[in-house]
């Protein structure tokens, strides 16, 4: 008996949806649009810190590994020990630097030996006039101040010599580096060349690390590194890390508030559409009551209708919303986003709940009315 009742309910809902095709299509469209915006915006909200965090890495290193105590150099084996600590998917780059004094034309200058491929990742803000070195064994770059001092243009050759040594090494200058900072006073060579020239074996002075992490995560990394080897003192670059925290926090709050406002308005919009669609069926409700239907039954039927609509529209919206978020992400950040099942589920539940609730209000009003009055037309 009970089974039969539910089957009847199912048939009534199905027929109501099918027979009133154009009205239901309008309602479905409204729900789908709402769900699209909901799921799309929530996805963007979750994705923004991750994507923006990557953009903020253009400020350069946020973690610097320095030698412990009074030592001047970081031994290579100590550096190799930390390899497992930093997660590779969050690591943007690690640029080693070896600093020492060298001579060009008998003038004392600072040399920085580094890995150019990593520098490009860690310090994307460098402005290079000319080119980055392609064969690092014989090509170097000069800081803008140094180049001005030496009167050297890209393409010319200079002779590098370690201080205290007469043996020179001819190198071709491929580019002039402009940063507005202290880098403009350096000569940049490949790390291997610097190590050979200065005779420091595999050691380096500092390691600049650029990693996508907030301050708490950075602190955790520094503790892990300090625990792994006593030879390294990791230091957080506070100016970069803390400012990123502040600005990123504000951006996320902005997207959060915008999301809330849009969500609120979208839900009300869906609700008003549903109300309009249901209100128009007061006559039908009156007829049902006149035929002896209980209030509970009528409410249940409309609720079922609304929730079916919500589920269908929600499903459609989740798919569209994913493309909406994808479009934003690709256009703004140039990266794709991954599908989040939890957000999809959440938007589905929200759209079912909102549609169901929006149906209930007008039905409740309609069922309170005397059938005779409704049927008579007023």
């Amino acid at each position, binding site marked *: 008996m009970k089974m039969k009742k539910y089957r009847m309910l199912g048939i009534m809902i199905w027929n109501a949806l099918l027979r009133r095709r*154009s009205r239901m299509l309008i309602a479905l469209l409204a729900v789908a649009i709402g769900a699209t915006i909901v799921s799309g915006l929530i996805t963007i909200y979750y994705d923004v810190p991750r994507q923006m965090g990557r953009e*903020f890495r253009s400020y350069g290193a946020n973690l610097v590994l320095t030698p412990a105590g009074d030592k001047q150099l970081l031994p290579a084996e100590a550096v190799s020990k930390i390899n497992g600590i930093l997660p590779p998917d969050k690591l943007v780059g690690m640029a080693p630097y070896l600093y020492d004094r060298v001579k060009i034309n008998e003038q004392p200058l600072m040399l920085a030996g580094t890995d150019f491929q990593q520098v490009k990742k860690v310090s994307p803000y460098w402005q290079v006039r000319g080119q980055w070195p392609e064969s690092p064994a014989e090509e170097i770059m000069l800081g803008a101040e140094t180049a001005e001092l030496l009167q050297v243009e890209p393409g010319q050759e200079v002779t590098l010599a370690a201080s205290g040594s007469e043996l020179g090494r001819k190198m071709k200058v491929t580019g002039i580096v402009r940063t*507005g900072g202290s880098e403009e006073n350096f000569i940049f060579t490949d790390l291997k060349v610097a190590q050979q020239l200065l005779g420091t074996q595999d050691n380096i002075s500092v390691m600049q690390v650029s990693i996508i992490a907030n301050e708490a995560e950075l602190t955790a990394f520094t503790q892990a590194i300090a625990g792994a080897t006593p030879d390294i003192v990791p230091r957080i670059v506070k100016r970069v890390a803390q400012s990123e925290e502040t600005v990123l926090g504000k951006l996320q709050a902005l997207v959060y508030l*915008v999301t809330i406002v849009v969500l609120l308005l979208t839900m009300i919009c869906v609700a008003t559409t549903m109300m309009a669609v249901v209100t128009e069926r007061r006559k039908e409700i009156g007829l049902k009551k006149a035929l002896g239907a209980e209030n509970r039954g009528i409410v249940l039927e409309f609720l079922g209708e609304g929730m079916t609509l919500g589920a269908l529209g929600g499903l459609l919206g989740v798919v569209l919303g994913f493309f909406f978020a994808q479009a*934003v992400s690709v256009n703004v950040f140039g990266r794709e986003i991954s599908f989040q099942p939890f957000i999809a589920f959440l938007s589905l539940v929200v759209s079912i709940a909102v549609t169901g609730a929006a149906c209930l209000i007008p039905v409740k009003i309609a069922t309170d009315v005397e059938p005779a009055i409704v049927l008579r037309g007023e």
Partner: protein
Amino acid sequence: MFWRMVRGALVRQGRKMFLVAVTVALGVSLATAMLNVMLDVGDKVNRELKAYGANITVTPRSASVLGEIYGLDTAPGAMGQYLQEEELGKLKTIFWANNIVDFAPSLETRVALGPAGTNAVLVGTWFNRHLSLPTGETVDTGIQQLKSWWSVDGNWADDTNVNTAMVGAILADKLGVKAGDTVEFVLPGSDKRETVTVRGIFSAGGPEDEELFVPLPLVQNLLNLPGKVAKVEVSAMTTPENELARRAAHDPKSLSLKEWETWYCTSYVSAISYQIEEVISGSRAKPVRQVAESEGNILEKTQLLMLLITVLSLAGSSLGISNLLTAGIMERSREIGLLKALGATNGAVIGLTLSEIMLTGLAGGIVGYFLGLGFAQIIGETVFGTAIALNVMVIPWVIAAVGAVILAGSLPAIRMLLSLRPAAVLHGR
């Protein structure tokens, strides 16, 4: 008669028209809020990015060369050139004066600290200096605003009391001093002794942590360089650089007159640097690439993000409005059928329906506009702590957009109404 019918419809169909008004109001408030926030977000985020510190450094034109060749920059009483402290107020008189957010001069020297004679760098600077400009305005500027990422244990030093100081965390550790203690230092090679009271210990996470900061006049007296500064750090709001700005940064003379004017009157970091060099004699202003480039990058991304969110959510809400309108008009087929049966022309029917909806929309729109302003202010206050600048440009945009949406939303329904045959409708099917 026409207006009586319109009024009658509005009053009789109160509830339905109320729904339409609510939806239009929601759509308009969404549009108003999003557009206002979007138009102002660049400015707001730019201000937030000032947390990264100075993006322009101003140094004397010839000092860098002297320091490089002879290593004179750290020697006391070096013969290098300096900038004039009294000229700094002119920074606020350049074309882009309003974009100069903060600036602070500095003058450095090496000193021996305490009884042990610890070697450290002494920096004279402005902490929070009250400055009267030649234009009659006043500004407060200094490292307190410029170095917002410093975490200070204790208080900031006082510009008006020259014997106050702030010590970097690493140096404080070495000396064993804390806020409230006094530190004595002496200039190497002379017997000028000074005692300062430590107001606070700061942690900057950079080389400053090993330095001692005091008010500028103290260092000027110590070095016998009254009114001179060695470096000025400037934090300015800038526009992201483009091809023109890069060419200009390389050589402003390579631009044509028209290009030069465009460049000069845009707040590119290179243009602001150029204007600083014009007002501060013998100076050289260099953009700090790390800050300037990244700023532009993040600014562009944020604006694009907001633009896309705005456009897409507006598209969504306009679909919602037109949807509701379609539903609203369709259910009145019986009334329209009667009108037509009584001899109303198609034009009259359309005019009647549209004026009803437009009037309702207008009422909803006005309410929605102010609601939207409220939303925008809530967002501004919560996120950035300042009000969002209201943009009058938003009003015509919103009116045009909502008008178009209402028209577009009514079109399919109106087409359907026109094809109605009165007899069929009145019969009930």
